[in-house]
């Protein structure tokens, strides 16, 4: 083992089987801190299962996950969030019966009893939510119930919820999935901006064009494990990647 990078997220020999299928198979991945990391791979290559293991949504069969040098393998998802690792879901998930603002009031990193018993709509938090909404470009919708939003707006709202939990590392599962091209450009610019402010990103994405322009570091998954990694250019030139995508 080399010395642990204290600001990074890493998985070592992570495995997870469902029945007889090894969805994640001895996967070791180091994400580059401060950069935009991307995970790509064919459908069913275990990307989402891998993320679910990393964020504690699924308990891996073996292997370990560390965040800033601290082991988080058996930690619950909510604890992992409070340690600074936020995530979005592949199928956009928001709280449909809450207003846009309320959606952003759910995440709480501070768990003191005083904070928890304090008013949910307290001025400072509502202001912070409002500023995020402005930045995402959906602040005019603050009082609308989330179920009344368009899909693109819901996508932005979900991102807002993740950002409200103040994560140092943001995992986004298909941020461009099902979104129109102009909104993809908007989200892409936003990610770059947020990254420039110091947040590390891990983006799972099928849109190759987006991955290649957006990311600094790409990890390619196939059959439950990373088969290649490097800069977008390096990965594109790797014959194993072509093989995985085109099939044998």
């Amino acid at each position, binding site marked *: 083992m080399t010395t642990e990078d204290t600001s990074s997220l890493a998985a070592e020999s992570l495995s997870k089987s469902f029945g007889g299928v090894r969805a994640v198979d001895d996967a070791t991945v180091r994400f580059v801190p401060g950069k935009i990391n991307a995970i790509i791979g064919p459908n069913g290559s275990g990307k989402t299962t891998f993320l679910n293991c990393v964020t504690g949504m699924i308990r891996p069969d073996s292997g370990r996950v560390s965040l800033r040098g601290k082991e988080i393998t058996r930690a619950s998802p909510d604890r992992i969030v409070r340690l600074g690792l936020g995530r979005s879901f592949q199928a956009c*998930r928001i709280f449909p019966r809450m207003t846009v603002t309320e959606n952003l009031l759910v995440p709480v990193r501070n768990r003191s009893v005083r904070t928890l018993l304090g008013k949910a709509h307290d001025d400072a938090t509502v202001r*912070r939510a409002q*500023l995020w909404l402005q930045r995402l470009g959906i602040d005019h*919708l603050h009082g609308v119930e989330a179920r009344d939003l368009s899909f693109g707006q819901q996508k932005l709202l979900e991102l807002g919820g993740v950002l409200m939990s103040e994560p140092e590392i943001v995992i986004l599962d298909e941020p461009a999935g099902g979104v129109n091209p102009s909104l993809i450009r908007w989200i892409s610019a936003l990610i770059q901006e947020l990254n420039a402010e110091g947040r590390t990103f891990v983006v799972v994405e099928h849109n190759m064009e987006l991955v290649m322009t957006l990311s600094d570091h790409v990890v390619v998954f196939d059959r439950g494990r990373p088969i290649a990694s490097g800069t977008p250019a390096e990965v594109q030139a790797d014959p194993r990647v072509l093989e995985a995508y085109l099939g044998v």
Partner: protein
Amino acid sequence: MPNDSDLADASAQGASRPWPIPRLLGTGTLGALAILVLSFPFLTDTGYLLSTGVFILNYALMATGWNFVGGFTGYISLGHAAYWGLGAYATAIMITRLDMPWYLALVTSAAAVAVIAVPVGIAALRVRGASFVIVTIAFVMILLLVFQSWAGVTGGSSGLMVPRAFDVLRTQHHQIFFYLYAAALALTLLVWWAIDRSRFGMGLKAIREDEDKARALGVPTYASKLVVFVLSAFFTGLAGGLYALWFGDLDPVFQFSILMGAYMVLMALLGGIRELFGPVLGALVVGVSVEYFKSEFGDTQFHLVATGLLLALVVLFMPEGLIPWLRGLFQRFGPRASSIREVSAGELAEQVEREHAVDEPGSRS
């Protein structure tokens, strides 16, 4: 930039002016209703009416207690009679066997019920949806078996008598318990309200909407559910303890009846589980109907049919409850008032304008 047509389609719904009148109206109505409730014992000295009033307050307290779990988290417990029965029996046993004063027995037994609810909650809250409902039913069935069989302590099937706490006439007895119940109900409503507006409550409501997503945003879901589960048991147990003191005669079949649990669900759903006063309104409707059925048809099986039909109707046609439905009616036919969510939207808009020049978000500290 996202284009405007993509983002603007819902904006019309968000923009609306604040409307302070409903809020004042609400506070006024609330005060008037409270005064009406509190003066009820003076308006009548008919024992029957008074005891019906106490019964309804008991229902209201149970249903509001139930709503700590049902309303916030959306977990429907059909077995909440377990905590009502436990509270009643615990109070009775503490008075008869340990010679405790009634108030001490009441509080201690509610606390004891809360303690018992901890392991039950730990087991039950591991599953969701239907399995959770089933576990809650199972718990009340176990208690029924135990309390019927364990005659040495519980009096078994022949029941348990609780000595009167107050040496007064029947009517006065009812009056005292009317106010005791009203006080307990006020306390319970206050706690529910406090949670409803808190961050903790926001997390709970997120669980009701999408539990996994709430966890992924850092809400400690399991602990949160357990806290409200225990609180719920506490207040339902308190209702049971008061019932033991008031009614003075406990029977396991009545205390641990699934039907009583079904009443709680029905009352809360009927009024509206998202609403502070939903369960109280439901208790009023169900309580009056139950009493009416009893006096009109006697003790037939009709009340089962009526309860079943009403529950089915609510589940099928009014799962949101009466209060949201009434609010909808008011909005459609009433003055051009705005809903609560639109009020808060308006308020927010104002606030944002005021604080427009605040620093950028994301400058992490």
